[in-house]
């Protein structure tokens, strides 16, 4: 208690109050306190050093902050890129589906009497040159043996084997396949059948053509509709070569099918002709 009654304590209080009031009053009235100004001037170089040091440290810390920020930005960009890639893939899928539906529509418009079922290829014949396909449609979907399989380009082949929810398709270039046909220009009849050698080139042949038939290279060959598989008027392909048969007085025409069997691996969908709508109006 001696201290609080001392002159020293009173002086301290007075000085403190004076140092509170005088600078505050001077500051309020807009005057500069000389003592404070002097201290500030002396301290300026030290303050400058302190600020630079702090800025250097802040800059050093900012490198790590920047790293974290960049990592976060990288993650965000990766996520964005992945999203965009997904969108692009989805867009490509939709475009492919759209193209397929257009093909489907063109065939359905051309032949409104056809009852078509679309099918997806789920597997292919093993080997370098595959023209036997397995589709995702079977007996539960109303698929039966010998039903024609079409593309918008023309005839692909026919159903050779049917399972519960799958079926196998043999193309027209297979040696086991044959169909009655005629040429569009001259109406020359014949039989289009597969050949084991021509199959390698994605081609088939038309046989039993009369030796004096009006047939030329470039003639379009259509299905005749005389057999039990294909309806008449479906495009098979185009004649590329004509030869005389060595063993009979007939001609053999080599046909390049409208369906590109050399590029059959890029196929994903086909159409199965499941029946005919007898009430449909056939365009002239």
């Amino acid at each position, binding site marked *: 208690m001696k*201290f609080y009654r001392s002159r020293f304590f009173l002086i301290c209080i007075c000085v403190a109050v004076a140092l509170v009031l005088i600078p505050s009053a001077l*500051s309020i009235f807009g005057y500069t306190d000389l003592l404070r100004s002097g201290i500030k001037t002396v301290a300026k170089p*030290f303050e400058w050093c302190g600020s630079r040091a702090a800025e250097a440290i802040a800059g050093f810390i900012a490198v790590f902050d920047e790293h974290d920020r960049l990592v976060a930005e990288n993650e965000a960009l990766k996520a964005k890129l992945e999203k965009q890639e997904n969108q692009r893939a989805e867009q490509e899928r939709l475009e492919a589906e759209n193209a397929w539906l257009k093909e489907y529509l063109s065939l359905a418009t051309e032949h409104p009497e056809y009852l078509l079922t679309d099918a997806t290829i789920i597997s292919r014949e093993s080997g370098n040159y595959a023209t036997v396909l397995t589709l995702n449609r079977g007996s539960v979907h109303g698929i039966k043996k010998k039903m024609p399989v079409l593309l918008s380009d023309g005839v692909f082949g026919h159903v050779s084997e049917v399972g519960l929810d799958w079926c196998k398709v043999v193309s027209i270039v297979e040696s086991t396949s044959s169909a009655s046909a005629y040429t569009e220009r001259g109406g020359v009849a014949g039989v289009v059948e597969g050949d084991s050698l021509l199959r390698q080139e994605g081609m088939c042949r038309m046989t039993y053509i009369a030796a004096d038939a009006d047939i030329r290279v470039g003639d379009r060959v259509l299905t005749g509709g005389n057999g039990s598989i294909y309806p008449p008027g479906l495009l098979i392909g185009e004649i590329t070569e004509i030869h005389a048969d060595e063993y009979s007085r007939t001609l053999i025409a080599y046909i390049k099918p409208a369906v590109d069997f050399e590029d059959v691996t890029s196929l994903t969908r086909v159409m199965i002709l499941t029946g005919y709508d007898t009430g449909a109006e056939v365009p002239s």
Partner: protein
Amino acid sequence: MHQRKEALKTSVLRRVLIYGVLFFLLSVLQCSFFSVLRPLNSIPHLALGALCGICLLDTKESAAICAIGSGFLVDALGSTGLSLSPLLFLIIALFCSAIGKKMLPNFLSWVVLLVMGSILGSLGTLIHVLQLTHTLSLVSLLRTVLLPEFFCTVLFSLPLYPLLRFCVSIADSKNHFRL
């Protein structure tokens, strides 16, 4: 008698010099280095931390003079307008000296004084903020200003203890400057 007066004079001068330099550097550090860096989003009151150390390790008279001087320095370097620091620091110094007198002069006691001093310092900041604005709620003030300032002051003042001990030791023993 004359020799005693001379010794006292020398002791006071030495103290003024050592503590003056110490508080000047701490005020500069507080007002430039830490005001740029702003650890914990606040500026630590290093001068206040050092003052608590003086209160514990030196006499009440030294603490009172240091409080007025450091308060004035802090206001001169880093404040505009109303300057309450000399009075606030003096009150803190007297309070801490009164408590410190009953404590052993060790690190733990200093931490206790530092916490008390920082609380009082935060109260001073509260008065200062309330004088400037009335719109902020107390909870918001506590969260954004007072608590960060308190923790920042305590945390960044802790390394000052060896320096304070050193300064007190070279500033001579307590007995030379006591009324």
